[in-house]
Every structure is written in C-alpha cells, then in structure tokens.
C-alpha cells in the first residue's frame, strides 16, 4: 500500500498547483519581464520598441545613479557594523535568566515589529527643528539647533539612526541564540586550566559565534542595501540627493518620472548586487549550520 503513496502521479501535483500559479505569475514571470523591460523604451502606458542596452548605458552615465550608489554604500558601511556591534553588546549584556533582562530584550526588539511609516513619524518628532525632542534638548543646553533632516551630512546620519533603532532587535536575538548554544563544558574545561576571562571570551565565545556574526552581518547588508522608506519619508533623499539611496532612485525613475525602462535597468543592476550578497548569505548559513 505504501507503494501507492510513493507512486509518481500527476494528480499529486494538484496540491502544489495553487501556489505554483501565483509563484509563476507574480514572481517568476515578473523577474523575466523585468529583464525584457530593461531593454525596452517604455513608460507607464506602453512599450515603444527594443533598444538593447541603451537603458543600462543611460543609467551608468547618470551622475545621480552613481551618487545613489555612493550613498547606499556609505549607508551600508556605517549602519551594518553598528548593528552587529550593538547587537553583540546587547546579546552579551542580556544573556541572563533574570526578569530585568527579559524585559529589556523585549524592549529592544519591540521597534522591529513597527512599520516603516510609524518609525519615521516617531523619528521626525525627534529630529524636526524647533519642535523636535532634540531641538528642545539643544535649546535647554543653550546649543545651536541643527536641521537634522535638511542639512547635508546630517540627513543620511538621521536616517541611519532611525534605521539602527528600527533594526537592532534582530541582530541581538540571533547573536543571543548563538551564545546560548555554546556548550558549558567548554568554559568549565577552560576554567580548570585557569584561563583568564578575556582569554575565554576571545578563544571560546567569539570563535563559537563567529559563524552567526558573519551571518548577521550579511543579512543586514542585504537589508540595508534595500533602504527605501526611511529615506523617502524622512528626507525624501535630500538635500540635493545626499541621502537618496538606490531603491529611492529606482522609485523616482520608474514611478515619478515614468521612465519605466530605465527604472527596470537600474533595478536589474541592484538585483545583481543583492543576489551576490544573498549567495554569500546562503553560503555562510550552510557553513554556520555545519
């Protein structure tokens, strides 16, 4: 009878069919259609013919694209180390079985469940000149107020602060889980050898969680490369594009300037970058699990 169950039958595929239809229509087909679009002269209303790599050439010759690349790289290069570092710190500090640390873990993770629009609204209440919490604090100290969201340099910084605040919960939780996986007898054996605490930390703790640390970093690289809502809502990329990341560049090109072909070309370029990072993530996960 078990043989019947194991029989290859086309009717068995019916169970997977509903999902496969949605997958084909809304993920696989759009992925291919996007490549096709990127080689078309296109706006929101139609296609006007094949133009080969023309869209790509236009994107790669656009100084705004390269500005967006620089902004994105700067953003990733600054937020990811902070997220991993703070995550590690919190995981070490809150890896105890006390009620207090459970509450703090809950507090640090709570912002993760909020939507990007709530996060940006909260941080605008902090950053806006005159009415913002920081402004009031600066005034009380007698300092010159700063236009955090409208000053070159500060605008991307402010987006970064809001992002770290929003995303910090995940690195903390993942690193915490890795810390709790470390077998206690490793430490006991080290204690018998009279190893110093710093030695235990650097020779046992860090090597044991290094796989997770790399995984956390790669996850954050992939996530922060896709920065969009925070920048769009807090600074709208300004001033002068100094906080405009790649995804916002794509959004502008395709959905505000209706240059769909060029937007598609830019999104394929971003896809390649993210794909490379995702492959890295897959490889790292495999290694970490081994």
């Amino acid at each position, binding site marked *: 009878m078990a043989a019947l169950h194991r029989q290859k039958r086309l009717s068995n595929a019916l169970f997977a069919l*509903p999902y496969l239809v949605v*997958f084909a229509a809304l993920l696989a087909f759009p992925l291919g259609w996007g490549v096709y679009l990127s080689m078309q002269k296109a706006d929101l209303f139609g296609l006007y013919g094949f133009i080969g790599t023309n869209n790509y050439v236009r994107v790669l010759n656009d100084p705004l694209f390269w500005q967006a690349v620089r902004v994105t790289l700067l953003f990733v290069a600054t937020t990811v180390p902070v997220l991993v570092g703070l995550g590690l710190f919190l995981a070490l500090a809150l890896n105890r079985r006390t009620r207090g640390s459970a509450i703090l873990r*809950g507090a640090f993770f709570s912002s993760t469940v909020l939507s990007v629009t709530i996060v940006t609204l909260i941080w605008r209440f902090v950053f806006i000149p005159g009415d913002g919490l920081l402004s009031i604090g600066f005034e009380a100290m007698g300092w010159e107020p700063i236009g955090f969201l409208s000053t070159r340099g500060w605008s991307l910084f402010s987006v970064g602060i809001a992002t770290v605040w929003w995303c910090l919960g995940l690195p903390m939780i993942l690193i915490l889980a890795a810390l709790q996986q470390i077998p206690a007898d490793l430490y006991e054996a080290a204690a018998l050898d009279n190893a110093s605490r710093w030695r235990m930390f650097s020779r046992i703790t860090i090597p044991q969680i290094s796989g997770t640390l790399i995984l956390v970093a790669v996850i954050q690289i992939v996530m922060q490369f896709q920065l969009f809502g925070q920048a769009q809502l807090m600074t709208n990329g300004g001033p002068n594009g100094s906080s405009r990341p790649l995804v916002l560049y794509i959004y502008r090109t395709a959905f505000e300037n209706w240059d769909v072909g060029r937007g598609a070309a830019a999104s394929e370029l971003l896809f390649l970058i993210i794909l490379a990072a995702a492959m890295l993530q897959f490889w790292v996960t495999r290694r970490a699990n081994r």
Partner: protein
Amino acid sequence: MSAAAPISRDQGRILFWLAVVLSVLMLAPMAWVLLLSFTENEALSRGTEAAFGGHFTLKNYSDIAGNSGVFRWFLNSLIVAVGQTSGVLIMSSLAGYAFARLEWPGRKVIFVIVLFGLAVPEQAVIIPRHQIFTTLNLHNTYIGLMLPGMSLPFGVFLMTQFFRAIPSEIDEAALLDNASRFRIFWKVLLPLTLPAQATLGIFTFLMAWNDYWWPLISGTDKEMYTLTIGIASSQVNFAQTEGLGFLAAQAVFAAIPVLIVYIIFQRHVVTAVSGGAVK
C-alpha cells in the same frame, strides 16, 4: 549561569546597566510621541515644550474616533493582512505537503526553482508587477493588495521542511485505512503542523500589515490606503500641520495593534521574524 562564564559577576552587572541606559535612549522617542499624543494641539502649536506641562487630554484620540479616514485605513489593513495571511497559510500548507510527501513528475526541479525565489528582492519584480496589475485592472482592489505577498516562497519552504520532519509511518498507517490523500493531509498531518502555522501566520501578518512599497504604488486611492500608507500621507505636510498631537495619536493608534500582537505572542513573533530573516 555557566553560559556567561567569561563574564564576571561585576562585569555582568556593568554590562546590564549599560544596556539599561541604552534602553532609555531606545524608548525615549516612543515615550515622547506618547506624551505628544496626550497634549492639546493648540498648546503644541505654541511650542512642543508644552508636552512637559502636565496638562493631558484625550482629545487627539477622540478626534481619531471621529475621523472616518483613519478607521477606513485600519479596516483596509486588517482586510489585506488577514486575507494575505490566509492565502499564504492555505497555499503553503498544500504545496509543502506536495513537495515533502508526494511524488509527482518534476517535483525536485520545481522545488529548486521555488527556492531560488527566496533570493529575489522586491525591487527586481515590482515594476513588472505594477504593469501586470495595471493590465488586469487590479490596482486599488483588496485582492490586488494581497496577491504579491502570496508569491513569496518562504512559507512553502517552511511548510515543506515541517512536513518532512513528520515521521512517514503516520500517513502510511492512514493509507492502509484507504484514506484519500486529501483526507490524510487534512485530518492527520495538518493538525501536526500547528506550531509552524502559528509562526508563518504571525510572520505573514506582520509583513502584510507593515508593507510599504507595494501599497504605496498600488493602493493609491485615499479610500484604499492601508494604515501604513495613510500614516505616510499624514506626515507629508509635517512642517505645516497644526495637529502635531493628532499626528502623534495616529502614530500610537497605528502602533498599538502590532505591539499588542507582539506582547501576547512575543516568543512566536521573535521566532517568526528571525526565521524569516535567516531562511
């Protein structure tokens, strides 16, 4: 306590108190918005220091109750999130069963293709999706807001793994009783997957509730705004708004449902979010 061995008692205490200080910084923005939401707009328009004045009011919240727009957005979000979550749970369970426990031609190849879908970021498909939905006239509809989220492979991946982990003796025994495959799926196996359903359900609900980019370009009628988009539209004229307290109350109102879900199902939410990130 031995897991914390490299950290001495005193060091642990110092680390903990540093974390306490950090948590104050973490919670201060939330507390500030909460404070603003209980302060009168008029007082705030003369300067937000008024929030520290100690005169509290519920008026901003009663204004929300009187504002049909915000409620409509809330309802839209609820419909979209519940619909999308149900769709994902149903389709992922069926597909997970088919991939994990049934034999059919092409199964392995198709599963690998679906897994590749895990690496596709939203921006690689969002422009074509927008065109498809324009062609099908699905913008500004509930089904149009729900569908793209249902194409994500994470649920299928999770359910397939879960179905694989169930011992095969269980359904083989049922097969001896001549039960149909659907009956085995429905009566025998599905009840065993409840923990995975909870994780996937919470993960999908949060994703749908918090989604920003797709509803931004698809649900563009004010009537079809989700709460996320509505809150975004409220903050566009931030500098000119007379109602800072009202705006703050909207932020709190929008945050409350997810925070309640988070507080009640904290462990599930943490598992779901970290599972979704690691894959």
